[in-house]
């Protein structure tokens, strides 16, 4: 079991509230991703759950038990750090076996568990090496190995892939998702990368300035963002926003249209514009269009659409996919 509940958690440094008031319920076995821009408090929230930071007020329950004041060691959670945080003076086997040694397990049992974990993570032939002799990906796997051997109630990941190169990151992303399917243990994962969030999460918590903006499945956040911040943060490339008279036509302070919800036509349409930059990716083409009177917009066109800098195009948003926001940025119900 590994359910995590936050009840009105507040974390302040002096008078500055990093997390003003967070309440959250993570179900047993769920893969939850905390996502948000740098400095939004997502790592702090994770560290509060881990017990590495003390809460200023509020409660943290693990499996219904109040653990707010418990030491990290008592919470039965495992954490994988951004810097891997391996013990440099220990071999891979000693690193993976360390939590078991701390738990007072006998040597033979530790060896068996370490071998099993190393097998799962393809580390068997590296057991006698020290961390400095491993590549980034291998180090990350050792860090994960150290987390899985002790069979924790939940895994906490603090931006575990941000030190890896792009190709390796995609691989490790798949490996972590695969691990979640195998272990079925609760995982809480912090990232600033919304692609990681969308692809890995069962549910996503979007954070901004310490506040939980929305908590839902990736598709809920994509289809029905609660506010302008979530709408802009989820989805790649970003949603286009228009305010003023054009928004007023839809009875809103601002409207938003995703790049993939606009049709591009050379002859006719709703908004006229000129192509600034055309990014041809093969499968898709992203056009950055200067729309007359509305500003710069990004549009996703078919991959092989041959449009170039300076071409005049007409954009037509899908009326059923126009998001409306009030002046506080809160989403309005569909018109």
């Amino acid at each position, binding site marked *: 079991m590994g359910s995590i509940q936050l009840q009105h958690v507040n974390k302040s440094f002096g008078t500055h509230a990093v997390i003003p008031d967070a309440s959250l319920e993570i179900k047993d076995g769920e893969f939850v991703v905390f996502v948000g821009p740098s400095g939004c408090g997502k790592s702090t929230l994770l560290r509060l759950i881990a017990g590495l930071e003390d809460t200023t007020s509020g409660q943290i329950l693990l499996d219904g038990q109040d653990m707010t004041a418990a030491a990290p*060691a008592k919470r039965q959670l495992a*954490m994988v*750090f951004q810097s891997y*945080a391996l013990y440099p*003076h220990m071999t891979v086997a000693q690193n993976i076996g*360390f*939590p078991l040694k701390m738990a007072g397990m006998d040597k033979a049992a530790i060896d068996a568990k370490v071998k099993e974990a190393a097998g799962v993570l393809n580390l068997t032939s590296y057991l006698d090496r020290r961390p400095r002799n491993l590549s980034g990906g291998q180090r990350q796997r050792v860090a994960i190995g150290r987390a899985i051997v*002790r069979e924790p109630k939940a895994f906490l990941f603090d931006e575990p892939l941000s030190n890896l190169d792009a190709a390796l990151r995609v691989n490790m992303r798949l490996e972590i998702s695969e691990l979640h399917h195998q272990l079925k243990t609760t995982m809480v994962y912090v990232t600033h990368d919304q692609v990681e969030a969308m692809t890995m999460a069962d549910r996503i918590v979007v954070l901004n300035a310490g506040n939980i903006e929305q908590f839902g499945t990736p598709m809920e956040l994509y289809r029905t963002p609660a506010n302008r911040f979530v709408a802009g943060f989820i989805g790649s490339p970003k949603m286009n926003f228009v305010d003023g008279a054009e928004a007023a036509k839809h009875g809103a302070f601002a409207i938003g249209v995703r790049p993939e919800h606009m049709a591009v036509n050379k002859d006719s349409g709703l908004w006229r514009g000129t192509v600034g930059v055309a990014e041809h990716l093969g499968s898709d083409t992203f056009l950055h269009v200067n729309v007359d009177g509305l500003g710069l917009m990004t549009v996703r066109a078919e991959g092989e659409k041959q449009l170039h800098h300076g071409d005049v195009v007409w954009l037509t948003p899908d009326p059923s996919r126009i998001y409306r926001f009030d002046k506080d940025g809160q989403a309005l119900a569909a018109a």
Partner: protein
Amino acid sequence: MARAATTQRKIVVTTAAWIVGLLIFFPILWTILTSFKTEGDAIAFPPSLFPPHWTLENYFEVQSRSDYFRHFVNSVVISIGSTVLALLIAVPAAWAMAFSPTPKTRDIMMWMLSTKMMPAVGVLVPIYLIFRTLGLLDNVWGLMVILMLMNLPIVVWMLYTYFKEIPVDILEAARMDGATLGKELVYVLVPMAVPGIASTMLLNVILAWNEAFWTLNLTAARAAPLTAFIASYSSPEGLFWAKLSAASTLAIAPILVLGWISQKQLVRGLTFGAVK
């Protein structure tokens, strides 16, 4: 052209380094050479660098007149004992300052260091009286404690500098892995800081070995270390330069050898953190 300039520079720098090194080492060299002279040669004017008549007589006489070995054992016990005591206090203190600092940590550290700026003689009388009351005069335990206290600020500072280099993530990982505070120190922090702790130990042993003010003032015979052994050769009847040199050579030899063997480690320790 550039290559010539570099070579020239190298020669100048190397020559300067040798001159400075020899200047620093000269008193020690002079002492060692004098210890092999006869008393007559030692005070002859003009003096000669090398002994005109080499002799080991001074060493035999020093050994027969006073018990070198007993003083040597006292020096070893006092310097190592005070170092171990200092580490037992300084490791947790430096841990707290490096990983769990408060807004006042910096002030406390400066205050600790400032105690080193006070002349020791300023507290001699109160400490002498305290030692007399506690029966610690001429006692190795008393000396261990006083030398530990004298060197503690430096030990804490050095360890703090080392500990600051250790990523806090690793200690947090240990906490997540179920390590208690004690286990975190024993299994993670100390093994990672071994080079730093070793050079701190070494420096403290050298400082304690060479310490003369407190060892001369708080000991008489039983607990007297090698510093007192040397001082006993300056008597009201006059100075016996050759014997005094032999005693000094015997006193500094162990620490000189230790310093020589571990000089790399020591230099690394003292310049640690200066260059990232």
